[in-house]
């Protein structure tokens, strides 16, 4: 069956898309609004602003890839669709960060998990950051609108075995689990969401808001890196960009100058603070780049008696919030349990050891079950988050201190996952840690072993797929970079509209939190710029 490609069709219809790596001279463009980034924040912003009648330019560092390009091959997907070939690291190299770098940003390669912002998170923002207008009731209509726009709905297909093991293990232990809602339409249940959806079922920005904005006349520049904002008289006067070279990794010779009435940063929680840092933007209270959160993830592999085939079927469909609900949000760090997709490269690099030790578990690839625990960082003074800084060449790098408070949660998470995996019938359990060689054969053995493991950076392998914060919102300029509408506290014609807004982590996969908050803030921005009511989200 032939699958239509909405991007190639749109290009054929005459979309204004420029691959900056092919420019032969410098470019100067003007619009009403320049939006940096095309992920969850940039996509939603672009659609709302263009529907309000504003001329929008979108700037994207990655390339424009679409369903015809998505071949479900790790060898192509990681270099083409991810920041730093899916090997972006924190400064000390101890946390591997998965982030998109393509049109649609991380929404093009995420695993479709859709959760509303947990009420406990919103309450914390209200009490600790003065975000009185971001209550549960105030945001509910924005969640409803974006859920309708992006087909967020319960997934009524049986979970794959990897996820069902989480459900069954939780049931055995008598702890709660639930089914994850997904943003899909006509999903084929293939299991390759992380390599770009080849059937356009995932309702990412790539197939929803961006085509809609381009149909309404927006202009998209790809392989263009936003370098710095130029300020004059307290406002942004222009955005200077560099075209990338043909490989898309290094700056090419061409410069692009963009001028607009208003500028929106939506380059992700490493990229957005980086643009402001390179621009030497005002930061009187030293909030910029600080409080960057990761939901640090620890992983536990298990060997099951039967085939799991964890590469097959919708990747994340079951979760447990049991360990988020054991105490107050500001107490000992809680964690969310999910089951990730298992593909040869991603699993192979995550798995500790080399030679015979590594091969022993790879040989059992089809019988491997994996769980991950997302640690809910940012709700306690002992979990202050990381700091985005710049290397000498201007590229961003995140330093993220794993404090004893966070390691305490990591240990409880490794214990909880091992217990659950044995309850689900695991033969052996292997926490992802350099000092775990042969794994554990019983829960008792695992408990003793994990309690003794030295939990330190690099020895414990950590990953993150959720970078948040760094341009945090607050009710006053002392505590944040932007206000509750995403408007910069010191620069009038500048907004931030992406996951870098969050003053803490979310405590759940963040895509829907970004969609809803940005839909609200972009609508407020459209009203401010047009002096008319914002368009309905359709």
């Amino acid at each position, binding site marked *: *069956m032939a*699958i239509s490609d909405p991007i190639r069709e749109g290009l054929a219809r005459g979309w204004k898309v420029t691959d900056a790596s092919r420019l032969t001279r410098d470019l100067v463009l003007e619009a009403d609004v320049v939006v940096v980034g095309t992920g969850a924040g940039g996509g939603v912003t672009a659609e709302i602003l263009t529907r309000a009648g504003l001329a929008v330019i979108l700037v994207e560092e990655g390339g424009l890839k679409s369903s015809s390009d998505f*071949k*479900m*091959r*790790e*060898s192509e997907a*990681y*270099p083409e669709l991810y920041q*730093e*070939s899916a*090997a972006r690291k924190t400064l*000390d*190299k*101890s946390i591997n960060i998965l982030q998109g770098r393509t049109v649609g940003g991380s929404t093009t390669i995420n695993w479709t998990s859709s959760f509303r912002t947990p009420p406990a998170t919103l309450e914390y923002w209200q009490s600790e950051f003065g975000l009185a207008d971001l209550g549960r009731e105030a945001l509910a209509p924005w969640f409803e609108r974006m859920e309708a726009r992006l087909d967020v709905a319960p997934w009524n297909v049986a979970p794959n075995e990897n996820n069902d093991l989480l459900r069954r293990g939780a049931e055995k232990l008598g702890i709660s689990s639930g089914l994850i809602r997904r943003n899909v339409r006509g999903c*084929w249940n*293939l299991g*390759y969401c992380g390599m770009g959806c*080849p*059937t356009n079922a995932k309702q990412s920005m790539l197939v929803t808001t961006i085509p809609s904005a381009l149909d309404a006349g927006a202009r998209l520049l790809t392989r263009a890196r936003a370098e710095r904002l130029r300020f004059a008289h307290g406002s942004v006067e222009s955005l200077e960009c560099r075209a990338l070279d043909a*490989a898309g*990794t*290094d700056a090419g010779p061409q410069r692009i100058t963009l001028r607009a009435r208003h500028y929106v940063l939506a380059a992700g929680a490493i990229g957005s603070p980086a643009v402001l840092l390179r621009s030497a933007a005002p930061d009187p209270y030293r909030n910029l780049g600080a409080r960057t959160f990761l939901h640090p993830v620890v992983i536990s592999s298990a060997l099951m008696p039967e085939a799991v085939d964890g*590469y097959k079927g919708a990747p994340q469909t079951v979760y447990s919030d049991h360990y988020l609900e054991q105490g107050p949000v500001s107490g000992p760090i809680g964690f969310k349990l999910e089951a990730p997709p298992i593909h*040869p*490269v991603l699993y*192979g*690099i995550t798995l500790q050891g*080399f*030679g*015979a030790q*590594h*091969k022993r578990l*790879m*040989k059992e*690839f*089809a019988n491997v079950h994996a769980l991950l625990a997302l640690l809910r960082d940012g709700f306690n003074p002992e979990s202050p988050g990381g700091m985005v800084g710049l*290397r*000498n*060449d201007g*590229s961003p*790098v995140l330093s993220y201190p794993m404090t004893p408070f966070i390691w305490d949660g990591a240990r409880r998470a490794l214990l909880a996952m091992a217990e659950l995996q044995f309850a689900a019938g695991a033969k052996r359990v292997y926490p992802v840690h*350099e*000092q775990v060689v042969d794994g554990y054969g019983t829960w008792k053995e695992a408990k003793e072993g994990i309690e003794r493991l030295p939990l330190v*950076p*690099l*020895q414990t392998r950590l990953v993150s797929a959720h970078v948040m914060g760094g341009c945090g919102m607050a009710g006053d300029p002392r505590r944040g970079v932007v206000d509750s509408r995403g408007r910069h506290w010191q620069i009038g014609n500048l907004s931030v509209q992406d996951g870098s807004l969050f003053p803490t982590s979310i405590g759940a996969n963040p895509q829907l939190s970004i969609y809803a908050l940005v839909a609200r803030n972009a609508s407020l921005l459209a009203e401010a710029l047009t002096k008319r009511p914002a368009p309905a989200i359709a």
Partner: protein
Amino acid sequence: MQRRAFLRTGIAGAALLAVAARLPAGSARAEGAARALGASDRAVLAAIVPVMLAGALPAEAEAHRKAVASVVDGVSQTIAGMPPATRAELGELFMLLDLAPARRLLAGVSAPWPEASAEEIAAFLQKWRSSRFALLQSGYQALHDLIIAAWYAQPESWPAIGYPGAREI
């Protein structure tokens, strides 16, 4: 004797680490960071690949040689797609491994890489994996990730692990 050798290694190792730390990571050098691995970098990798992937590569000599070469090519290609700062750091890692004193003292490999035994290379990987220096641990992990990714990205590696690849659509 053993203790003195350890001390000597410790001091020389610390000095080498200090030199490595001063190499201009992500600075002016990064702007022109090489994309392709040089012949000496490839020789280092070609020695390490069969040990990192021991048991995973085909046993037959010609197939084994081809598999090693394809992994070295894959690593080279991955590095070429990295941003300049990362390419510069990885370039420093290979440069360090290729310096004879560093190879002897930091890696504990006495013979030049192409002549080093599998046992010696395995001991080096294990030593860096559990080193008290974060720089060496992260050097091990960079080699681990690059080499393992380059192998398991190839369909040739899949039958042995029971991965059928994506279904045709």
